[in-house]
């Protein structure tokens, strides 16, 4: 969901660029093959940093289990230029925000993944415009972490 019809229209306008105009070229730059294309994971966590940089942005999360054990996750996003064209801003996510991140996990088992979408504290869901996003199969929700009080 995005705020305002203008953002929606802009998102639609540049959807073609993101999905159709990028994937092949991105493969020459950067491969997403390190991420699981067959399953997704949902991570509930507290933002420790929203790294707004090129070539890609990153979302850093502290994720607590039911026994309050913490695991830190690094979740890769796309280029901030692409994200800007979808309406993202660097101020959209703040440290301390509790978010729900849907990601394609790293195949090597490390605590990280590729962000497909994130639900912010206001309930709005933002997609990152991952090239060829339809190649990542969405699977029944597997939730890691509990929201902190």
């Amino acid at each position, binding site marked *: 969901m995005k705020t305002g019809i203008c953002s929606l229209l802009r998102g639609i306008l*540049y959807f*073609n*660029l993101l999905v*159709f*105009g*990028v*994937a*092949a*070229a*991105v493969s*020459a*730059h*950067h*491969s997403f*093959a*390190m991420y*699981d294309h067959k399953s997704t994971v949902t991570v509930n966590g507290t933002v*420790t*940093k929203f*790294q707004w*940089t*090129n*070539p*890609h942005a*990153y979302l*850093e999360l502290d994720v607590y289990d039911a026994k309050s054990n913490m695991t*830190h996750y*690094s979740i*890769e996003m796309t*280029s901030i*230029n*692409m994200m*800007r064209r979808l309406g993202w801003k660097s101020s959209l996510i703040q440290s301390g925000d509790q978010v729900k991140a849907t990601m394609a996990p*790293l*195949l*090597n088992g*490390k*605590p*990280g993944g590729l962000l497909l979408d994130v639900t912010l504290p206001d309930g709005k869901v933002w997609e990152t415009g991952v090239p*060829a996003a339809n190649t990542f199969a969405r699977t029944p929700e597997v939730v890691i972490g509990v929201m902190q009080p």
Partner: protein
Amino acid sequence: MITSGRRIEILLAVIAVFGLLFLTGYTVVAAAENDIADIGGAWQRYGIMFNAANMATGDKNIPPPVSDPPLKAEFLREWQAQRQARRDADAAGTPIANPNYVNCIGDGMPTMMVAMFPIEFLLSDGQITIIEEAYTQVRRVYLDQQQVTLDDIEPGFFGHSVGYWKEGVLHVDTIGIKDYVQFQYTPHSRDMRINERFYKVAPDILWDEITITDPEYLTQPWVFTYAYKHMPGYKMQEYICEANREYVDEHGYQQIKIGE
């Protein structure tokens, strides 16, 4: 003493000369204007180029996908082996790192014209400047100049480009690309030449027909085309590759740094 009759003759001659100059000048300007197409501004890649099946859209403004390079047999074998190795690594979930990406190095020519990010054409007197948003890559095309020799320039990422307009088509000739600046991992010699023809196929669709010639490596010219769609009003963003977390591990695989 100039007679009045003589004055009239001189006046008529002056009018005739200025008239001729005016007409000649007008004709030249008009022809030049007809030759030049309005390609200024920002453009985004147009078309679904990643899967041949997707070409069945029926949109004639989408050019065919890029073919494999027509490499000579001895080079083609190695190219195919490397491609298979990359595919196998991807399938195993351990992609082979791209050193340029890891080191925040831009594409160079002709990969830049893939236009993974928007590109912008700036038209000025004697020069056309092409900028790609990704990595803030810049090409300069010098108009109506003779191409230099390879001895006159040092190899680079974008080479040395000259061009001219003719009947609405911008012709560009580029030489001087570094050997490790490769398009689709295709090796090339110092003599590689890139010829481009930019022309509109619709009011808002621009094609770049690219022809690569390299007799040392290729059996024939490698010809392919990219299409771009105009982005009216789009303001190009800055792009600095300032914090790349990707690195190459001891096996040559692509990895990312976990943690802040």
